[in-house]
């Protein structure tokens, strides 16, 4: 397998956009090309994560239009990848493996999504399509509802009083909003307090509005490359050193989702490929679609013991200056969650962190970074290890 370099990274601001999904993807992709120093005509394949283009703008088969939008040669295969919120992480994993194996030397990979045009009722309906359409969706379960059930399971399993857990969850939101306030591309750039979270309206018990990430628009893209012609400049370029992806059935079949078997399997693959363990990770962007989701992820990735993720937040272990800084970008919670673009934006943040380009939110001396993205109700987990 060849070493896969990240030659360039680009991202649009996250938030509410007047631009279409395809316009945003082109913007992020040109930024990535510019960052890489490569012309788009060097690109040999395109992979795009996009979940709900059909519902948002009435667009299927978006990928070839994106290739045309970018002026790529008609030789270029262009593929849309859908694994719910993990779509673009999965796209990056597939692209990286194709580059590593020598099929392509240069690939454009990223994601784009314009969720806000759907409005909350349709967005809530389409997000719920990540649950099983026959055996779960007809109950009216929503995505916040899935994670509300996970939070109650967690409190009961580890005998943590719900008020204590809710406060720990609120601290996740406070931390991620703090980090987001330092990220010029974040959807929300304002600090909040525990009281902001606990005073907001209930969405799906016990999750309140500020426990939930927003619906966002945005795009992000990377240029991945290998081969003698495409050595990046600089002494310590960023490489993708490990990837993992694993799967699970419906929430019913998974039963106790406080332990995501897909996550534990996926990150094991990624750590093994990179030859590292959780103790070697300097910075992590993980899937905090809801505050409880961050606590579950920090345990599943091996940073903390099971049942101790909430306490770790209380002790500041995941803050920018903590033992393992988590979501320096602001995470899905504050940076925003344009679902198909989320994984690529997590990768963008890790690349920038490893290059030392993150200004006020820079994690000092980071050389190994981990991306963790969850798709659906714990059905897909995909992990990427970046190092320099």
């Amino acid at each position: 397998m060849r070493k896969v370099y990240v030659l360039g990274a680009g991202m649009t601001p996250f938030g509410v956009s007047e631009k279409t999904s395809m316009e945003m993807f082109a913007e992020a992709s040109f930024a990535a090309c510019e960052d890489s120093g490569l012309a788009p005509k060097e690109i040999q394949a395109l992979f795009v994560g996009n979940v709900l283009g059909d519902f948002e703008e009435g667009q299927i088969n978006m990928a070839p239009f994106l290739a045309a939008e970018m002026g790529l040669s008609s030789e270029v295969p262009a593929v849309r990848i859908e694994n719910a919120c993990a779509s673009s992480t999965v796209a990056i994993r597939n692209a990286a493996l194709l580059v590593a194996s020598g099929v392509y030397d240069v690939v454009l990979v990223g994601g784009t999504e314009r969720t806000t045009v759907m409005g909350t009722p349709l967005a809530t309906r389409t997000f719920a399509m990540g649950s099983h359409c026959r055996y779960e969706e007809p109950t009216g379960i929503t995505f916040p509802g899935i994670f509300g059930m996970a939070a109650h399971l967690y409190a009961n399993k580890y005998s943590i009083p719900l008020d204590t857990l809710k406060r720990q969850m609120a601290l996740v939101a406070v931390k991620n909003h703090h980090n987001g306030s330092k990220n010029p591309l974040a959807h929300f750039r304002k600090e909040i307090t525990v009281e902001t979270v606990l005073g907001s309206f209930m969405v799906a018990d016990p999750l309140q509005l500020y426990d939930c990430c927003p619906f966002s628009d945005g795009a992000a893209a990377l240029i991945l490359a290998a081969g003698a012609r495409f050595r990046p400049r600089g002494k310590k370029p960023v490489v993708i050193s490990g990837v993992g992806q694993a799967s699970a059935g419906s929430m019913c079949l998974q039963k106790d989702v406080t332990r995501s078997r897909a996550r534990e399997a996926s990150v094991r693959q990624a750590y093994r490929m990179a030859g590292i363990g959780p103790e070697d990770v300097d910075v992590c962007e993980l899937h905090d679609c809801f505050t409880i989701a961050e606590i579950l992820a920090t345990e599943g990735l091996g940073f903390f013991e099971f049942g101790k993720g909430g306490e770790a937040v209380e002790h500041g272990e995941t803050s920018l200056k903590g033992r393992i800084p988590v979501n320096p970008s602001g995470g899905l919670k504050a940076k925003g969650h344009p679902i198909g673009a989320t994984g690529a934006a997590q990768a963008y943040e890790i690349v920038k962190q490893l290059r030392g380009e993150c200004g006020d939110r820079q994690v000092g001396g980071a050389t190994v970074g981990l991306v963790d993205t969850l798709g659906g109700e714990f059905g897909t987990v995909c992990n990427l290890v970046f190092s320099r």
Partner: protein
Amino acid sequence: MTRALTYSAYKDGLAKGVLRGLRCNSCREHILPPTAACPKCGGSDLKVADFSPRGKITTFTVVRVAAAGFQPPFVVAMVELDQGPWIMGTVKRIQPEAAAMGLIGRRVSVGSERTAADPYSGGEGVSLTFELEGK
């Protein structure tokens, strides 16, 4: 292979008041929702079995912001059936304000209701319903 239990047959069972699931002939696992192969051992020699419609709540939420087509608030729960599988359904005859941690562990009986079609649902559906037993 012939599929042991289709969604259609599962739904017909519920209409007759029977909770149908699967039993793995290789490892004896009880399976619900139905799958093509056993989630535990991977075996595909499965047979239909009528499950006891009773179990206990393992977790719950109150949906207060609902998807298009649903009227909030309502309580959704996971129930562990006496035979082992976990199922998702709505808890009936409960005030949302009464849905607290004490619900976890409460015993329920399982029923079902038809759910309306929307443009994306592939026709009418069915949802499991839970009624609390005892006090």
